[in-house]
């Protein structure tokens, strides 16, 4: 809607649109096979519906799915507007290379149009990306050995960026099932981490939380350090202190 005062109908702001990039880093290692991977897909469908129904978020959210197992990839090679987002078929196989997922994330954040950088006199930039990591186990190397040696520096590279480079507003880590470690999840995140069961109800709760978080994050003046810090976890999601 433009001004309903005729004399002002021609007064148009010069800038463009701003979007909110949302990255979902999904563990598709072999341990996710079966019910968990099916629950993730259904959760993505729920996520798409809920965000698309929000009158504010639906216009600005674009989603990038980064799956990680023995390899990592950004599905569709770019981010997709939430209205056009089609939950992918996920196949669980391999080890848990979170380090590779962070590498893919970093490359995407530096690439337009995945994330648009603001340039005065040029283009309006996107909001800082929001990143969610969902995993059911501990990060490994290529041989399946649990290690912090690989993912930690890659995660730090995503967070500690040179001035002027885009970095996430937040990284929220969520661990599902019995094999997650609270300390690791906390270290993956920028402050907000949860653990949950691996059943369908828990995944519904998780993706509802993600939707609400994203809707809240587009509020003007949202906490730039951690826009989801004030979100209340719902039942089924246990916040890691």
């Amino acid at each position, binding site marked *: *809607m*433009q*001004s*309903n*005062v005729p*004399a*002002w109908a*021609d*007064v*148009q*702001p*010069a*800038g*463009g*649109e*701003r*979007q*909110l990039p949302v990255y979902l880093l999904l563990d598709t290692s072999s341990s996710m096979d079966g019910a968990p991977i099916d629950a993730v897909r259904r959760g993505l469908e729920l996520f798409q519906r809920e965000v698309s129904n929000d*009158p*504010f978020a639906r*216009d*600005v959210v674009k989603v990038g799915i980064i799956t990680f197992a023995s390899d990592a990839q950004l599905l569709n090679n770019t981010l997709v507007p939430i209205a056009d987002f089609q939950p992918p078929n996920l196949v669980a196989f391999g080890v848990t290379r979170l380090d590779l997922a962070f590498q893919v994330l970093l490359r995407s954040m530096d690439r337009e149009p995945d994330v648009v950088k*603001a*340039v*005065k*006199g*040029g*283009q*309006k*930039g996107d*909001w*800082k990306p929001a990143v969610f990591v969902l995993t059911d186990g501990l990060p490994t190397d290529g041989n399946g050995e649990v290690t912090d040696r690989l993912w930690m520096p890659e995660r730090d590279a995503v967070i500690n960026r040179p*001035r*002027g480079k*885009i970095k996430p*507003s937040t990284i929220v880590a969520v661990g599902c099932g019995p094999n997650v470690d609270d300390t690791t999840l906390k270290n993956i995140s920028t402050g907000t981490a949860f653990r949950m069961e691996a059943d369908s109800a828990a995944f519904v709760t998780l993706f509802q939380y993600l939707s609400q978080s994203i809707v809240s994050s*587009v*509020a*003007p*003046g*949202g*906490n*730039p350090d951690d*826009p989801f810090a*004030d979100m209340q976890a719902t039942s089924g999601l246990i916040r890691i202190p």
Partner: protein
Amino acid sequence: MRTGFAIGDRGLGASGDTHPHWMMAHAEIGPYLVVGASAIGKLHLAHRSPRDDAFAVRSIGPWLAVAVADGVGTRPLSRFGATYVVESLTALLLRNLPASIPPESEPFVGSAAFSEDAAVLKDLVPPPALEQFIFNPPLVRYNNDASEASSGDAASMQFHQAATMSWCLSLPGDAQGGASQPEAPDSSSPAPSVSQETALLDAMEQAFDKTYLGLKQHASSLSVEVAELSCTALAFLLNVETGYGVVGQIGDGALLGLSTQLQAKELVEAPDAGDQQSTYTINRPNFKKYLAISPITPSAEQDFTAFFVMTDGVSGDLLYGPRSALDEWAKSIRAALQTAHNPSIAAAQLLNWLSSYEVKGSWDDRTLVIIMQRERNDGNSHPVTGEPEPARPTDDH
């Protein structure tokens, strides 16, 4: 006596929260029309949260002070900071005017004009009626006819309009806009000396210093941490007779000037926090590290016909397009103001525009104060807002 005015948002204290969702104000001073408006952002409105922006405009004699501030969204009481800051900055800017360029203070009763005009003056009264103007929030049709309200629930929305109007008597020699053929500042105006320019810069710095200190006291009086009052701060001081002035800025938002060549430029560039979701605020102890101050120095190449003072809800939609588009925006604003029948309507239309223009992802509060020259005597004719009136209505607080 040189009269002045104070318009815009009022300070909020412990006695209560009276910050309106929409605010507009207007005034005339010398050759300038001043219109300001502030509109709650769409997301705030949808979530029933308050407007966090604030603006204030004050004058005394030829001096005009404007300030806008944007309360940080994550601080629920930030509007208490924003309203305090704009009130404080505008008051202190006028109070801190350097001794070398004082506001005149001849007593009204001692003026030569008094005896000559006494018979006329004693019978002056404000005008009996104002031309009706209509604010059209986006939920209501343009004609404001309830029977034709645009859509279901919106039609039942209750809007309570509240306003204060004042009239300032304009005496000969007073820069309150009383001259029938106002002279605009131009490049031939006497330039302030170097010491005067320094004094203006100092006045701006002192205004920010004292506002910071006052903000801490204000927080104490409200029994909250000063961080709860986090807000940006942009201030503008202009001598409408000479065209010289000074601007200061902490955090995002913008202070723009529109030149006679119809090019818009930023008058000052404050340090950038590095991304669009962070900003510097005046409540920080090290705020001066992020304070940028710059003089307004008209010249043949840079003679401004209009100034725009705005929060980031507006500047975020303006500064990231091509420069030419910014110029076009400034020109179209000027053209739109020219069509308004009077300052009240100009302000109402500005408020309506701020409330209704749509850009995806632009939902923040929007505040814009425009200081625009009326008719120029240098060949650039910018008639504005109809005929001059014997008395000039303002929203006064």
